[in-house]
């Protein structure tokens, strides 16, 4: 009966999609036990978590604000992973993207927004790509492992940012006031990304990120270059026999990964902070990896995955305030959730395999 197997197939897919979400409650139960040990009420805590993530217009927008960089970084991670390279350099690429967008906006603050705004986004993207291209080329030409080089590039980007923000790019007002905070001047108004809901931080960058997700999907599945990147990631040996220059495509994959992280940095600076400051990357380079893997390394899957993960992060902060537990509890809980979600995938894989043997 073909129809029935069709339904079964869809149900299976639905099940696989919601499986990671199912693992979250299990982690929450352990979290509840820890909360009890901390003498906090898990009920209050978790209702605060949900409320903090989706309880009001503001919290929904906050979740989306958080999801935006996660999604953009996650897209870059997805491309890199699909090409068989692991990009841990998201943090550095975000910083570089944000720095260069800021530098451009401040140097040409007289230019009209229609030119300057897209240019800033572009330059942020390009410099992120450049920061990704260094490990890419090092891997392709000299066989330097990308995990090593991207971790090192993160530290280099951080120091570069420290240098620029305390010296050449520091807000002149900070020197005048003698407070010397390491941050740039406020960006000119015309490069601020428009806010979508008044009195919230939700900005147009979120829409841009979703558009990018669709573009990445088309790129990976509908273009030759995308196909080759995936082929290289899937089986480098076979790709080589098929005449694909593997190192070049790996370098390309990590460069594109850097481009998206760089864009995330530019968007974060132009949409949320409106100036470059320390700690802007905020760990998105790492949590973006988690978002991408939650999304099954599929660009469209990364969209809901980053919203889910963003919501968890935002809700967890609210929980910290509601029951006044140390912030470390949030990290612990996040770690548990990640561990449980990633472990739960075995059931999906087992089911898929069982199905294959039946068919």
């Amino acid at each position: 009966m073909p129809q029935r197997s069709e339904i079964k197939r869809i149900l299976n897919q639905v099940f696989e999609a919601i499986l990671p979400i199912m693992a979250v409650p299990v982690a929450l139960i352990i979290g509840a036990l820890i909360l009890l040990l901390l003498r906090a009420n898990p009920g209050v805590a978790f209702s605060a978590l949900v409320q903090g993530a989706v309880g009001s217009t503001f919290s929904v927008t906050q979740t989306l604000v958080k999801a935006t960089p996660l999604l953009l970084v996650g897209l870059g991670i997805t491309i890199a992973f699909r090409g068989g390279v692991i990009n841990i350099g998201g943090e550095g690429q975000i910083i570089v993207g944000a720095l260069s967008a800021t530098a451009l906006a401040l140097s040409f603050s007289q230019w009209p927004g229609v030119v300057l705004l897209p240019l800033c986004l572009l330059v942020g993207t390009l410099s992120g790509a450049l920061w990704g291209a260094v490990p890419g080329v090092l891997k392709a030409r000299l066989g330097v492992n990308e995990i090593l080089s991207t971790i090192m590039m993160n530290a280099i980007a951080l120091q570069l940012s420290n240098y620029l923000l305390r010296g050449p790019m520091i807000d002149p007002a900070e020197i005048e006031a003698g407070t010397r905070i390491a941050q740039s001047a406020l960006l000119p108004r015309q490069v601020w990304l428009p806010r979508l809901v008044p009195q919230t931080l939700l900005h147009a960058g979120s829409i841009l990120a979703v558009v990018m997700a669709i573009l990445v999907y088309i790129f990976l599945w509908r273009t030759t270059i995308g196909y080759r990147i995936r082929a290289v990631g899937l089986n480098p040996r076979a790709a080589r026999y098929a005449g694909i220059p593997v190192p070049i495509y790996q370098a390309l994959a990590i460069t594109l990964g850097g481009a998206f992280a760089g864009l995330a940095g530019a968007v974060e600076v132009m949409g949320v902070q409106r100036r470059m400051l320390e700690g802007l990357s905020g760990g998105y380079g790492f949590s973006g990896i988690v978002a991408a893997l939650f999304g099954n390394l599929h660009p469209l899957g990364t969209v809901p995955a980053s919203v889910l993960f963003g919501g968890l992060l935002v809700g967890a902060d609210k929980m910290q305030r509601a029951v006044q537990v140390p912030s470390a509890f949030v990290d612990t809980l996040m770690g548990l959730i990640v561990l449980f979600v990633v472990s739960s995938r075995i059931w999906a894989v087992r089911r898929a395999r069982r199905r294959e043997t039946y068919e």
Partner: protein
Amino acid sequence: MKSVLSRLLMLVVLVALLLSACAPAATPAPTQAPEKPLRVAIVMPSSITDMAFSQGMYEAWVKVQQEMGGPSKLEIAYSENMFKVPDAAAAIRDYASQGYDIVIAHGSQYGTSLAQIAPEFPNTTFAWGTTTDTFADQGIKNVFAYNPAAEQGGYVLGTIAALMSKTGVLGVCGPVEAGDAKTYVDGFKYGAEQARPGVKVQVTYTGSFSDVSLMAAAAETHIAAGADMLTGSSQSVVGAIGVAKEKGAKWFGQQWDQTSLAPDIVVANQVYDYTGIIKDMIAKRKAGTLGGVAYTLTLENGGLTIKYNDRVPVPPEIKAKADEVIKGIIDGTIKPLP
């Protein structure tokens, strides 16, 4: 398939049950106390036990709370380790919308967000630092600003260190050359050079506020290069204090009283004391002023204090010199920065 669905359902029900079981009877009914406590919320970039920036602010509120008569008079909520600015911004807004009377944004990086939030909650008092900007030029009236003049204590400690040093070499373990870390270091260096011409002040930065291990190596390097008096700034200096203790070098604390970490080597500390401005803000709020004042913590107004450690005696003539310097800074005859 059936088994999967039923399992799924079971789990959902289980979780729902669990959540609702421990959910409280809605929101806890607000028990009307005879007098409503003043409610304050603090948002901080590091931990309340960091022995530096955040602990100073948190403990000051706790102290004021004790003086006022406990949690029934002053209620304190806090969010720590909010080093990601958007998270901090969400926390600030959330506290304000929950009706906290005073919300402290304890990090200069929170300023841009605060300028957007403060106008939406005109009845809430906000305070932020370290800065001198109350956003008055943007028409915002409910923001206080505070800024420690870290160079003042730096100058005093530099004077003491230079005069006490046997080798004539001082080591400064800095994190990132910015904010009060920079002004403190600049003051320390200048003070030392003024007190003892020819003294050598070595300055290192680790490029991080949290790298304890590199901070320890920095202290080792200073000591190997001849320094016998060390100081530093940020929460990562605990690493340097550990090394100083091991090697018998003396230490000068900054931001917070670090004596307890190494009672045998800490000579003196510059301590940020926010209690004065806290009390003033509370009083101003009671009088109807919700913001607009930029406080500077100075030696003069008691926002900065030099705290000696009795177990490491400072020779009386040096102490006298330090007092003289403090007096000079207060009356303006000594400028703590070049």
